């Protein structure tokens, strides 16, 4: 096995990883702070992808205007998230987790059918922005510019989220809310607004990742459910609610998949699920999580 081949497998794994991280980060964030397992996160991702497609049609049907479409999709889904939190989630805090699970599952079905109603069942596709449509040669391998961009944006988002949580006033509030919501409320902080903001950020990330995958993925009904399973695997491997856990969970998932298919070519899913099973047995709280 040549080193350039190993490098291209590594980069392939990294691409998978950073895509998953973009999606899983929002999922992990909402769980970490609000203790909500949001099944509908994949639906926000799907809505982001459809919105991006729609915006590209409005702005410039021949392929330009991609970046504007990404902004429209991410902000649009962020607003949708804020609205959902204000209208529905608000009355579910403090209730049993089962109710929250059921509610987010209901959202999955509602948003899935709504997307079908608006955009139909045809498969849709968005072309890569012209500036990033090409590729470059690195170590004798061909690397698409767009995936290099995604590989760069993953750590950037991780760092931005870390800054938000650890270096800002809002972040301090969020961490306080995570520890003791009632006490924070009693101290006069507006916990309601913090939660809405948090949820909006999470939905924004889902919308952003949905929009960003459109140049290399198809937009089809059901993409919401397909992605949420993988996002959950990543979050479980890394540790529920841990941002860096989710980051490294994604990296491990990507590399295990990428090199796993070299060892077990006939069983692409085997390595990833075997990894998850082992981690769940050895460290049920995930690699970076804390025992509950």
């Amino acid at each position: 096995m040549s080193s350039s081949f190993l490098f291209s497998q590594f980069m392939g794994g990294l691409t998978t990883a950073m895509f998953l991280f973009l999606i899983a980060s929002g999922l992990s964030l909402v769980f970490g702070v609000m203790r909500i397992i949001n099944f509908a996160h994949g639906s926000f991702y799907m809505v982001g992808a459809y919105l991006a497609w729609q915006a590209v049609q409005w702005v410039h049907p021949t392929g330009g205007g991609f970046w504007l479409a990404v902004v429209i999709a991410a902000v649009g889904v962020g607003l949708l998230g804020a609205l959902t939190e204000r209208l529905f989630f608000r009355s579910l805090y403090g209730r049993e987790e089962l109710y929250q699970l059921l509610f987010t599952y209901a959202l999955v079905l509602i948003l899935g059918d709504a997307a079908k109603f608006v955009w139909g069942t045809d498969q849709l596709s968005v072309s890569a922005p012209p500036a990033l449509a090409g590729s470059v040669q690195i170590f004798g391998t061909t690397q698409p510019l767009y995936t290099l961009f995604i590989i760069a944006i993953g750590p950037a988002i991780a760092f931005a989220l870390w800054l938000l949580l650890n270096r800002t006033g809002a972040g301090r509030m969020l961490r306080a809310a995570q520890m003791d919501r009632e006490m924070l409320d009693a101290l006069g902080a507006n916990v309601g607004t913090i939660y809405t903001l948090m949820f909006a950020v999470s939905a924004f990330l889902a919308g952003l990742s949905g929009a960003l995958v459109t140049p290399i993925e198809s937009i089809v009904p059901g993409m919401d459910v397909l992605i949420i399973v993988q996002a959950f695997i990543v979050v479980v491997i890394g540790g529920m609610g841990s941002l860096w856990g989710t980051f490294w969970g994604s990296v491990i998932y990507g590399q295990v998949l990428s090199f796993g298919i070299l060892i077990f070519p006939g069983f692409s899913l085997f390595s990833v699920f075997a990894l998850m099973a082992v981690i769940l047995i050895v460290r049920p709280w995930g690699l970076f999580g804390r025992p509950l």
Partner: protein
Amino acid sequence: MNCRFGLALASLLLSSWPLAANAADTIKIGFPIPLSGPVAVYGQPVLKGAQLAVSQINANGGVLGRKLELLVRDSKANADEAVRVSRELIIKDGVDFLVGTVTSAEAPAVSTVAKENKIVFLAPVAESTILTDPQHIHPYIFRTNSNTDVEGLASATEIARWKDVKTVATIGPDYAYGRDLIAAVVANLKKLRPDIQIVDQQWPKLGEPDFTSFITAQMSKKPDAVECAVFAGDFITFAKEAAPLGYFKMIDNRMVDSGGVGTIEEVKALGNDYPYGIVANTEDPVIWTSGNEPPEHAKYIAALRQFTHEQYPPSWAVQGYLTVSALADGIRKAGSTNSDAVSKALIGMTFDTPIGKRTFNVKFHETFQPEFYGTMVKEAAYPFAVMKDPELLPQSYTPTN
């Protein structure tokens, strides 16, 4: 109110006159089909084709003097759900026949329901050979689409035509359809071109969001050509990820995709991201660039265009259309809607379709439908890839066992 009263009176009068009442009854066709989830991409156009056939047949006076009626249910591409709605259609709605399902999980499941209830069931899309193999065949199951063995022969024929190709890699979704199809291609290729070696086989899962690692792993084996069974939305993802990696350039676009990515649905979605130069297949290319379009096809497309209000109507509609037409022919030939009689009529029956005559094989109850194959090219007149000189393959097929 008056109108409703009048109708009620009329139906009261009619029901006291058995013969006329019978004529007013519709022939009910239960239509379990995936209308949600990723497989709805197939379900919707198949349904449109079926609806067009029903409206044309009814406009011409129906069958045996009775109108056809489609009772559509969402099967969600799930075997359990397909079985549930099929049972309901039979027991509650009293359908006379079943037409529908898309996946090779749903179709065999509904086939057992048809067998239990002794109701003729025609599968317009599913391709798994187990649907009609000797262990599973029964008098009431019929298939109008190709099967994976037929597709395997056709695709191997295309690959074998590249005389200088010595090494072939395969990539297909990791479930029954992908596995069966690739196995059939490889088996046929061994017979047609014993000099060709299979150097790599990749099995991404169905709905894989990122094919990059599979693509780079395959490229490291430097195949001369590729047999691909990736289809629909997955193929869009695959093509868009493979092109910038230099995958198509490396194999000089020598790929045969057997998963039906020559459909209008697929080329429309991919637009200029389509990997021009590959060989693809479809049940109906819709557009004939060479000008030798069969007249019955032109007539069908004109009607479909009017029905769907789309300039380029979907390829998959033809499977819904020809399946309902075949059933109608069977009922006419049997002279009754009794499933035993219709089954007897269908076995060995030849029927017309927009894409040529088909005959239900006596032993296997299927038509071994050939599909259109051709190189996908860019033409100035169309905003997407079109199939150059569509050719029906395989030219002949003899079932084994």
